[in-house]
């Protein structure tokens, strides 16, 4: 296919050609960024979490008398354990994705202050005995807490847990001691120290605090006797039972402690609530992308149809002097290919620029390079699909058209 005649004819229709190029460029730029953001959000919504999310129900109990926690918590756990279908129960200070963070800065050296730059902000989970089974924690190295660890750990005089053992997530172990085993090492918080006895698969934090998304797995577990800071009751059951278990557990705790407020939820719902903003963004962006691609495609159809209508006579002449239908078809296709090529080239630059702007102003990450050619190929395919109809109609123009005037 010769490109010369196509370019010559485009030069005659500079502005319509420019409009198509511009439309494809804009569509490509918006598409790349929108798909990138959809991907980022979708990845966030699907963040893995090494607990048995499908089988968990959580009941929060607020307003219980702190003085009586040591006797009421074992009683509550006993009652919850008796709910049919419940496999394990425990109580924690907070839960992954609950929105209620317990953030603390840890260091690896005793002489470092929590406010020093080298410290790592992470969430602390205080758990009652049996929480590893209730949550479904997966031990990777070392050991879980033993009964004596739970019995000797208290909340003490400050916000810090009074204990000397800790279990860290794999991710945090790698951040605190890169390339080394975390087992047996000590982590410090001001004047407190904790020795790592185990490493578990990555569990999510309650909030996006600390380093944000990159730090979402920075979590530490501590054993804890029944104390008033523990008020997230977690129950594990078969996934089919979880809705009923959540309801019954809420009723049970409300009945046992009429002065407090109990609120039951399945963990699946908690996750949905936590990511509701992200999933709404995904749907909005998907809708925008679909509408935009449709508008772009129809725009190409409209303009190409106009061209075809304008050039019926020329097409007729070409057909009369020997051009086949395939030639006409490929003429319009190549024309669209050239316009799309110019459009996506401009669009990729624009997409990159928009990404830079968003990075500067709106906490958006850098777009990986492959989104650019990806968007370009999508727009190019769209252009080819859109041009097929008008090009086909052009190919159907009979040679006799050449003899008609006007």
């Amino acid at each position, binding site marked *: 296919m010769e490109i010369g005649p196509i370019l010559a004819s485009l030069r005659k229709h500079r*502005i*319509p050609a420019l*409009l*198509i190029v*511009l*439309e494809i460029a*804009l*569509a490509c*730029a*918006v598409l790349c*960024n929108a798909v990138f*953001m959809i991907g980022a959000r979708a990845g966030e919504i699907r963040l893995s979490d090494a607990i048995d999310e499908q089988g968990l129900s959580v009941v929060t109990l*607020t*307003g219980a008398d702190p003085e009586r926690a040591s006797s009421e918590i074992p009683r509550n756990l006993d009652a919850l354990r008796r709910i049919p279908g419940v496999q394990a129960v425990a109580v924690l200070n907070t839960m992954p994705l609950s929105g209620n963070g317990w953030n603390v800065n840890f260091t690896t050296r005793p002489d470092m*202050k*929590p*406010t*020093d730059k080298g410290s790592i902000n992470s969430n602390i989970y205080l758990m009652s005995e049996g929480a590893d089974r209730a949550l479904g924690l997966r031990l990777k190295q070392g050991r879980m807490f033993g009964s004596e660890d739970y019995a000797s750990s208290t*909340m003490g*005089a*400050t*916000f*810090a847990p009074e204990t000397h053992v800790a279990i860290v997530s794999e991710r945090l172990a790698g951040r605190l001691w890169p390339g080394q085993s975390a087992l047996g090492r000590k982590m410090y*918080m*001001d*004047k*407190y120290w904790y020795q790592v006895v185990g490493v578990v698969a990555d569990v999510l934090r309650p909030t996006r605090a600390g380093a944000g998304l990159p730090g979402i797995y920075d979590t530490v577990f501590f054993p804890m006797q029944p104390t008033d800071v523990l008020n997230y009751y977690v129950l594990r059951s078969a996934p089919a039972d979880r809705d009923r278990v959540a309801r019954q557990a809420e009723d049970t705790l*409300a009945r046992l402690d*009429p*002065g*407090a*407020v109990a609120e039951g939820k399945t963990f699946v719902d908690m996750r949905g609530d936590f990511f*509701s*903003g992200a999933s*709404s*963004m995904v*749907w*909005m*962006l998907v*809708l*925008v992308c679909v*509408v*935009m691609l449709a*508008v*772009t495609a*129809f*725009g190409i159809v*409209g*303009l190409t*149809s*106009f*061209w075809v*209508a*304008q050039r019926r006579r020329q097409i007729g002449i070409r057909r009369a002097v020997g051009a086949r239908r395939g030639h006409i078809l490929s003429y319009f296709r190549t024309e669209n290919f050239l316009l799309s090529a110019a459009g996506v080239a401009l669009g990729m630059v624009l997409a990159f620029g928009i990404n830079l702007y*968003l990075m500067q*102003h*709106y*906490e*958006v990450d850098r777009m990986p390079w492959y989104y650019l050619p990806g968007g370009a190929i999508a727009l190019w395919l769209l252009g080819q699909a859109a041009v097929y109809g008008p090009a086909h109609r052009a190919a159907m123009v009979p040679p006799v058209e050449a003899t008609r005037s*006007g």
Partner: protein
Amino acid sequence: MFSYYLQLALRSLKRSPGLTVLMVLAIGFGVAASMTTYSVFRAVSGDPIPWKSSKLFVPQIDMWGPKGRSDNGEPPDAMDYADAMALQRAHRAKLQSAMYQVSPSVVPTGAGKHPINVSGHAVYSEFFPMVDAPFRYGSGWGDDADRQRAAVVVISSKLNEKLFGGANSVGRSVSIEGKDYRVVGVLDDWNPQPRFYDVVNTGGFSSGNEDVFLPFERAIDVGMPNDGNTNCSEIPAESGFVGLQHSSCVWLAYMVELDDAAAVSAYRQYLDGYARDQQQAGRFGWAPNNRLRSLPDWLDSEKVVPSDTKVSLLVALGLLIVCLVNTAGLLLAKFLRRSSEIGVRRALGAQRTAIYAQFLTEAGIIGLAGGVLGLLLTGVGVASVSWVLPKDIASLARLDAPLLVLTLLVATAATLLAGLYPTFRASRVQPAWQLKSN
């Protein structure tokens, strides 16, 4: 003349219904997407108290020093107990209040009723006039109640509905955390968004209600714990709520009303003087690094508008631009197809301005039709943000008269803009050339 152009335009649009529908759809969708996201954006970036926001200020004191500052040197965005109390005692602003979030349990009267958790704030008496809280019954408490740590409470109309069936409950008592409080005021429906007086704890937007307001020092006295965020630069030496009060942890919100520029600069001087005094006393080992932001600046610096909302608005604007470029292209195609018609009109004596008027009328009709479609779609969009967006934000987005007018205006103006070049090309058609070729 205009009605003639209107007729011509309608006839021309009817001649190529496919193209017309295409343009109307493009404009409609583009405008609807922009307007829907704009309605959300408008809701979250709005001024919650426009008549007064320039007089409300939030002081920040650098009690942590260089180590505790954020990367750009900002002091903490909340206050510790000692400094908040010092500011409250000095009483240098016209109105001021320290406050913190509480979540006490309230027991409804009547046998067998379960206690409910309510949220609210512990505030000083000047809080109510400062934020212009509207009262249905009664009023806030006086500053004598502040000093006496009186057991009084201001409740929301919702809680009043729940506890007293909506009757005037001033003078009746409510059991809060097991103690009786006398109701002195019932608020009208009041749910400012963003929750400007305590942005740090509510994140700006909160679907929860503010049900109770208690005297600050009373709440401290009875040990009603802080239900909001607490940030510490070091571990408090003592435990519990009292330990928190003795620590340098920040957990209090603070707001002052300053009526003119002189008052603002006087208060600024007071803050710096206070920090210097602390420096001399040896409590601060650094020079004063205070902030005194007006409410709009404060909301901005706390990034109250979710960045997702802004990005959505940008994406929707991108879509609108794509739609406009598309419409420009289609209008161009449509107008140039009628070159011979234009040639005839010009040859018969029509001015270029007449051609302009004719084709811009046509573009305007498309814009208006697109606007009407956009309006319908915006209605659907705004109605459906409630199941797509978080409830606290979605409930703020609504379709009102200004948005209706704006939708039509944007659609028409944008289409006219898109029609400018095609019309220009149409008016340049050479009559002689067109006539000859026919």
